[in-house]
C-alpha cells in the first residue's frame, strides 16, 4: 500500500518556515550550479559561432593567437592561388588578408582600460562572415580612416559609439557603423580596412589569412598542402576549431571553479536537507507508528520520506533554476587569457542544462533524505506508538 503524495506535500506545508529555509538553501546551490553551466555554455556558444565550419584560418606556425602571428605578403599570395579556395561571384578567391592588433581602450563610466582587438579586414572579410550584419550607419570606405565597431564594444567603451572617434596609430578614426555579429566573438572587436591599419601600426606583414574552402571535404588536403609547403611557415585550422581553442583556458577555468563551488555548496545544502528531514521524522514518531499500525509497510514509509525530501529539492531546484534563467539578460565580459583581449559573452540556458540541474537537485534531495527516511522506516511499531 502506498502513501499518497498529497500527504507528503501537506507535511512540507505544515512546517512552512523550515521548508522555505531549506528550499532557499537548495535553491541557492542550484542557482550557482546552473549559472556556471550557463556561463560555460555561453562562452562556448560565442566562440563556436565566431567561426564558420568551412572557413580556414592560417597563422604563423607555433603562434597560438592571431596577435602573435605574422604572415608575410609573399606567403599570403602563395596561399591565395590554391585551387581549393572557393571563388566569389566576381571570380576572385574568397580570402581575406587580415591584420589583428590589440589596443587598450577605456571603458565608459569607469575609464578602466581593457584590451580590444582591432581587425583590419580585406575586401572579402565581410563576405566570409555571414553572421556579421551592419545594424547602424554604413560600412567603412576602403582608403578612409573609418572603422566599424561591434555591438558590445560600442556599448561598453568610450569613443566606440557611432559618430564618435577613436585615436590610435597617430590618427583619428571615425566610427561610421555598428555591426551585430550574433553574440559571437566579433561583437568584441573593431573592424577597419587592413590597408589603412597596417601602415598606421607600421606593420609590413599580415597577422592571418582567412579563407573559405570550395568544399568542406577539401580541408585535409588543403592543410597538408599548406603545412608541407617549404615556402610557407603556416598552420591551417578550421575557423571553428581555432576559436574554440582560443578559449580553452578560460573555459577550463570556469568549469573547474564551478565544479569545486558546486561540490562545496551541495555538501552544505545536503546537510540542510538532512537536518530538516531528521526533524521531520522526529516530530512525527507517533504518526509513523500509527501509519505502521494501520498496515503501511516499511518501504512505503521509506518512500514517503524520500519523496518528501525530493519534493523539497524539486521546489528548491525550480526556484533556483527560475532565478538562474533571469541571468540570460546579463552580459558578462572578461579578458580571455589566451588572446589577452576583452571578450563579452552571455549566460545561455539550454534544455540540457535544465535537465542536468534538476537531476542535480533531485540527487541532493535523495542523498539528504536517505538517512532520515531509513530511520523512519526502521522504527518498531510499539516503540513509535509509545513515544507518542
Amino acid at each position: 500500500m502506498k502513501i499518497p503524495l498529497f500527504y507528503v506535500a501537506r507535511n512540507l506545508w505544515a512546517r512552512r518556515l523550515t521548508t522555505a529555509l531549506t528550499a532557499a538553501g537548495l535553491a541557492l546551490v542550484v542557482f550557482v550550479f546552473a549559472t556556471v553551466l550557463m556561463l560555460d555554455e555561453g562562452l562556448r556558444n560565442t566562440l563556436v559561432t565566431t567561426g564558420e565550419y568551412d572557413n580556414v584560418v592560417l597563422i604563423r606556425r607555433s603562434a597560438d593567437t592571431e596577435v602573435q602571428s605574422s604572415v608575410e605578403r609573399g606567403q599570403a599570395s602563395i596561399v591565395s592561388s590554391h585551387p581549393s579556395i572557393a571563388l566569389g561571384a566576381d571570380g576572385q578567391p574568397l580570402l581575406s588578408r587580415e591584420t589583428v592588433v590589440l589596443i587598450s581602450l577605456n571603458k565608459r563610466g569607469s575609464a578602466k582600460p581593457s584590451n580590444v582587438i582591432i581587425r583590419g579586414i580585406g575586401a572579402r572579410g565581410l563576405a566570409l562572415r555571414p553572421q556579421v550584419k551592419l545594424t547602424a550607419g554604413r560600412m567603412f570606405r576602403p582608403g578612409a580612416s573609418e572603422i566599424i565597431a561591434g555591438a558590445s564594444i560600442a556599448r561598453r567603451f568610450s569613443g566606440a559609439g557611432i559618430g564618435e572617434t577613436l585615436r590610435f596609430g597617430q590618427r583619428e578614426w571615425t566610427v561610421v557603423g555598428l555591426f551585430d555579429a550574433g553574440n559571437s566573438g566579433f561583437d568584441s572587436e573593431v573592424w577597419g580596412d587592413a590597408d589603412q591599419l597596417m601602415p598606421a601600426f607600421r606593420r609590413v606583414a599580415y597577422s592571418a589569412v582567412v579563407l573559405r574552402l570550395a568544399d568542406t571535404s577539401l580541408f585535409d588536403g588543403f592543410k597538408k598542402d599548406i603545412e608541407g609547403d617549404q615556402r610557407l611557415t603556416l598552420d591551417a585550422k578550421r575557423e571553428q576549431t581555432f576559436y574554440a581553442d582560443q578559449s580553452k583556458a578560460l573555459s577550463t577555468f570556469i568549469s573547474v571553479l564551478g565544479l569545486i563551488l558546486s561540490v562545496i555548496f551541495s555538501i552544505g545544502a545536503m546537510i540542510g536537507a538532512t537536518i530538516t528531514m531528521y526533524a521531520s521524522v522526529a516530530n512525527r514518531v507517533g504518526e509513523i507508528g500509527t501509519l505502521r499500525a494501520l498496515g503501511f509497510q516499511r518501504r512505503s514509509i521509506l518512500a514517503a520520506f524520500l519523496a518528501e525530501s525530493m519534493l523539497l529539492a524539486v521546489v528548491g531546484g525550480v526556484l533556483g533554476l527560475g532565478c538562474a534563467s533571469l541571468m540570460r539578460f546579463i552580459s558578462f565580459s572578461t579578458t580571455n587569457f589566451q588572446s589577452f583581449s576583452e571578450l563579452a559573452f552571455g549566460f545561455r540556458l539550454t534544455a540540457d542544462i535544465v535537465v542536468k540541474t534538476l537531476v542535480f537537485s533531485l540527487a541532493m534531495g535523495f542523498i539528504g533524505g536517505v538517512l532520515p527516511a531509513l530511520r523512519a522506516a526502521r522504527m518498531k511499531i510499539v516503540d513509535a506508538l509509545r513515544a507518542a
Partner: protein
Amino acid sequence: MYTLRLIVKNSLRHKLRTSLTILGLVVAIFAFGLLQTVIDAWYAGAEGASNTTLVTRNKTSLVFPLPLSYEARIRAVPGVTGVGYANWFQGTYKDPKNFFAQFAISGESYLEIYPDYLLPPDQRAAFLRDRKGALVGRKLADQFGFKVGDVIPLKGTIYPGDWELVVRGIFDGRQSTTNTATLFLHWDYVNESLKKTLPRRANQIGVYVVRIDEPENAAAISAAIDKEFSNSLAETLTETEKAFQLGFVSMSEAIVMAIRVVSFVVIVIIAAVMANTMAMSARERLGEYATLKALGFGPGFLTAMILGESLLLSLFGAALGIVILFPFAAFLGSVMGTMFPVFEVTRLTVLQQILAALAIGLVAAIAPTLRAARVNIVEGLRSIG
C-alpha cells in the same frame, strides 16, 4: 558557569543534528576562507609591487614594443636612478600546459631594480657571463625539478624557433609574497637571434622598468617620461608597478567579482541551515522554556542560553574550518604550481572567517530567542515537545 554547562549539555542533546550543523559550518567557513585566499592570490602580484619602481610601456597597448633607444632618454630624466627592460617571452616548455612566466631581461640593470630576488653572488655572476644562461625562481625549480646546470628547451611562440637555456642560478624571494615562479633569460640572446632571423623585430623593448629616488615623485617622474616621448612614433604610458599589476587584475575583474559574491553566498546558505537547526531546537524545547520561566528565570537567561548554544556551535565549526584550511591551501598551492605564484592564507582571511562565524551564530539565534521570550507559560507547558 552553570549556564555554560547547561549550554554545552543542550547542544549535545541531539548529537547527530549538532554534528551535522557543525559539519555544515566547517564546510562554509572553509570554503569562504579558500575563496578569499584565491582572491588574495589574484592580487598578490600587485601587493608585492614596489612603489619606487615605475613601468613604462607603449601607450597603445602592451603588445606594442618601444625602441631600444628610449633607454638613454629615460635614464636622463631627473629623479630616475636606474633603468632596466624586459620582454615577455612566452616560450612553451615541452607542452603548452606547462605555462610559466618568462622574461627576457636586460641583465644587471634589471636585477638591480628588484632586490627582492635573492641570488648567491656566484650564481648571479655565472648568469651574467653566460649569454644563454637563465635564472629560475625557487617555486618554478621545485615544480619542474630544475637544477643549476640543467638545460631547458623552450619553443618560442612570440619569438619563433627553439631556444636552449642553461640554468645558471635559482633565486629565492626576500618575502613570502615575492613571485618566484618566473624564468629570466638574456634579452641580448633573443635580440641577437632576431637580428639574424627577423631583423625588423630586433632592438625592441616590451617594458622599461624605472627605479626612482623618492616614492612621492612617482607621479611627476611618470609625467616627465611620457612627455619626453609624446607625439613620437611610440608614445609611452608610465605608471607605478603597483598600478601596472592592478591593470592585469582588473582585466579579469568580472571573475574576481563572481568569486567574491559566491563566497558571501556560502555564508548566507549556511546561516539559513544554522537558523533552521536553531529554530527546530527551540520548537522542541518550548515546554522547557515555559518551565524555566515558571521557575522564575527571565527572558535574559533564555536569550543567553539560546545565543550561547548558537555561538558555541558556529565558533566550534569555524575553528575546525580554519584548522583544515591551512593544510588544504598549502596542498592546493603546490598543485596549482605556477598559476598562482603566491597562495597563502592571510591573517585578514582568518579574522574574516571568525567574524563570519559570529555573524552566523547571532543571526541564527534571533528567531528562536524571540519565540522563547514570547512563549506564554501556560501554553508552553501544555505543548508537547
